[in-house]
């Protein structure tokens, strides 16, 4: 499917699409908070998320036709005015956020009833829309300080959402608190870094900053700013070893949040880091290349090995998949560390693939949790018999995670490995292969329990997920398969995005 030929909105609407993709969920959040019932809040949430996804699709088509979109807020031209700046990389991630957000909103209709206090449903939907608006804004903005504000808008939403899981599992509260502390420290580090860069360049517009930083790569303030920004975003992106907040938040929060955060929140932070690494900081600056080669690559490799092992030995199923998420972030960073267009494009494609497959896996677990409310791996024994469709969708997500051929995960992994080989980094290839084997070990454990084990006598019997869960779940699983066969839609955005960042950088 070619995005160039995709016209999903009137030209006049498409021109306003970048701001609408942010503003609609933001207004929806206010409306949902005031909604008279949880049902009404849910409908607002679904509609707002859907409009945001639709606008993101319109933006993606426009970006493929016209190149970078510059949307001037209030008609003031940058660098003095604040602008939204969408390139193909941003369009891809926003599309992922929109798509997963819409499916998650549909799914929330059933999962919230089982997991969150009824009187909190409207506020929960408000927080969810706030998180979505913040993430899309973070991806679209062209202003370094606005990115911080959007980052915090989405984070404050997600802190509250994780804490809302306390009805079913009260460990959600300390997990949310820990997430808040770590997340705020990360965001504050980012602000300090932006302060250094502003002090050195006198601008906050990222494109303008990139132009002015060109000759400043020996400047100590720029280097300090770089360190603060990368460390701060590293916390938000769950870069090993700054990922301590993630397993608790994913394992104890409501299922909706596990799936939404796993698919989008870390991706948005990784996206912003890529934006700084490859666009803002000076071309070929010694400290940038040194960071990629000597910090990001080893940390990525360590994440792949250590967190995959932690996943192998985890007892709670959702914690296992949460550790797997940190390991997958490691794969993405290994792609970044190649510092060339093919590595970045492969990493972007991997981000999309991982978002879709993890969303499918967490959503399947959420669907099962409605009937059995289980946490430990053993509780899921034999669920495939009672809930075949849910189990199959989980299996497709898991197959994509391992990298089985004909799934999106296979293409994504193969692209990074191919880029590593082309770049002469055999060790990255080896780490990825080892990581895939470890993934197979823990995924194999889950599949064995789910599909081939007898349910324990007396254990609660799983039920097939309700239609409201099954439809978004099968769409997610179907996308993982569809893009495994015909990956042209995410692929063209990933390649165009990577190419545009590297054309200025030989």
């Amino acid at each position: 499917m070619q995005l160039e030929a995709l016209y999903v909105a009137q030209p006049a609407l498409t021109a306003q699409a970048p701001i609408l993709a942010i503003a609609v969920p933001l207004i929806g959040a206010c409306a949902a908070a005031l909604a008279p019932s949880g049902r009404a809040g849910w409908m607002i949430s679904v509609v707002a998320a859907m409009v945001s996804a639709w606008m993101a699709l319109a933006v993606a088509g426009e970006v493929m036709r016209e190149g970078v979109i510059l949307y001037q807020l209030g008609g003031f031209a940058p660098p003095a005015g604040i602008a939204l700046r969408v390139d193909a990389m941003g369009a891809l991630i926003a599309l992922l956020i929109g798509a997963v957000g819409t499916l998650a909103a549909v799914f929330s209709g059933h999962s919230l009833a089982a997991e969150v206090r009824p009187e909190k449903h409207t506020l929960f939907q408000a927080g969810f829309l706030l998180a979505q608006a913040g993430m899309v804004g973070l991806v679209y903005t062209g202003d370094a300080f606005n990115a911080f504000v959007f980052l915090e808008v989405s984070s404050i939403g997600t802190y509250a959402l994780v804490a809302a899981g306390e009805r079913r599992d009260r460990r959600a509260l300390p997990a949310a608190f820990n997430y808040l502390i770590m997340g705020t420290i990360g965001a504050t580090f980012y602000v300090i870094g932006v302060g250094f860069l502003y002090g050195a360049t006198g601008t906050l517009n990222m494109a303008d900053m990139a132009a002015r930083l060109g000759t400043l790569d020996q400047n100590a303030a720029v280097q300090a700013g770089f360190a603060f920004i990368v460390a701060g975003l590293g916390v938000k992106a769950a870069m090993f070893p700054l990922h301590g907040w993630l397993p608790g938040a994913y394992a104890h929060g409501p299922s909706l949040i596990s799936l939404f955060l796993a698919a989008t929140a870390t991706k948005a932070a990784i996206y912003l880091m890529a934006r700084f690494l490859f666009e803002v900081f000076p071309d070929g600056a010694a400290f940038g290349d040194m960071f990629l080669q000597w910090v990001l690559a080893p940390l990525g490799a360590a994440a792949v090995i250590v967190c995959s092992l932690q996943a192998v030995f985890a007892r709670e199923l959702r914690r296992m998949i949460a550790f797997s998420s940190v390991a997958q972030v490691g794969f993405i960073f290994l792609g970044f560390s190649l510092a060339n267009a093919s590595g970045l494009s492969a990493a972007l494609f991997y981000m999309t693939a991982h978002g879709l497959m993890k969303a499918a896996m967490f959503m399947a677990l959420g669907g099962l949790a409605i009937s059995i409310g289980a946490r430990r791996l053993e509780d899921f024994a034999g669920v495939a018999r009672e809930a075949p469709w849910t189990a199959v969708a989980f299996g497709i997500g898991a197959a994509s995670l391992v990298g089985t051929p004909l799934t999106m995960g296979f293409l994504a992994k193969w692209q990074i490995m191919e880029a590593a080989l082309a770049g002469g980094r055999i060790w990255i290839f080896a780490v990825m292969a080892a990581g895939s084997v470890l993934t197979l070990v823990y995924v194999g454990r889950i599949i064995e329990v789910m599909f081939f084990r007898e349910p324990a006598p007396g254990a609660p019997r799983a039920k097939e997920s309700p239609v409201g869960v099954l439809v978004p779940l099968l769409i997610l699983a179907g996308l993982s398969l569809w893009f495994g066969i015909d990956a042209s839609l995410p692929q063209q955005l990933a390649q165009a995005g990577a190419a545009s960042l590297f054309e200025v950088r030989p």
Partner: protein
Amino acid sequence: MSWIATHFNYVVVVILMMAGLFIVFSSGNLIKRMIGLALFQSSTALFYISFGKVSGGTAAITLDAQGAEGQALAAQLDPAYVAQFGVEGVVYSNPLPHVLILTAIVVGVATLAVGLAIAVRVRESYGTVESDEIDAVSRVAAEQAEPAP
């Protein structure tokens, strides 16, 4: 010594930042950790304000030298400075960092509110705000949930 005198603000920023981070990581009490976090965020505010200051600069208000307000504002300036540069030549401090940090303070207050709200819920659910005791309760619960081997 003179370095400290010229970079006094930044020295304070670093001390505040380190003190805040130390409290966040060393304390087990959730409320104290939030206080540490607030201190840490405040250091950023001081940092932004400090680098926005231009030596000899005044508030960024355009002076109309002939107007009454301009006269009043000019009267507050250092007379020697006005005598040297005239009211039109007055240098302003950079207002943008102030505006930025105003936003960051609002974000910080929101975070603080959410954090304290979660701490209240922790207290309701666990009966304590000490991390050690919360961990102990969670561990006991986890062991009870495990079936006997």
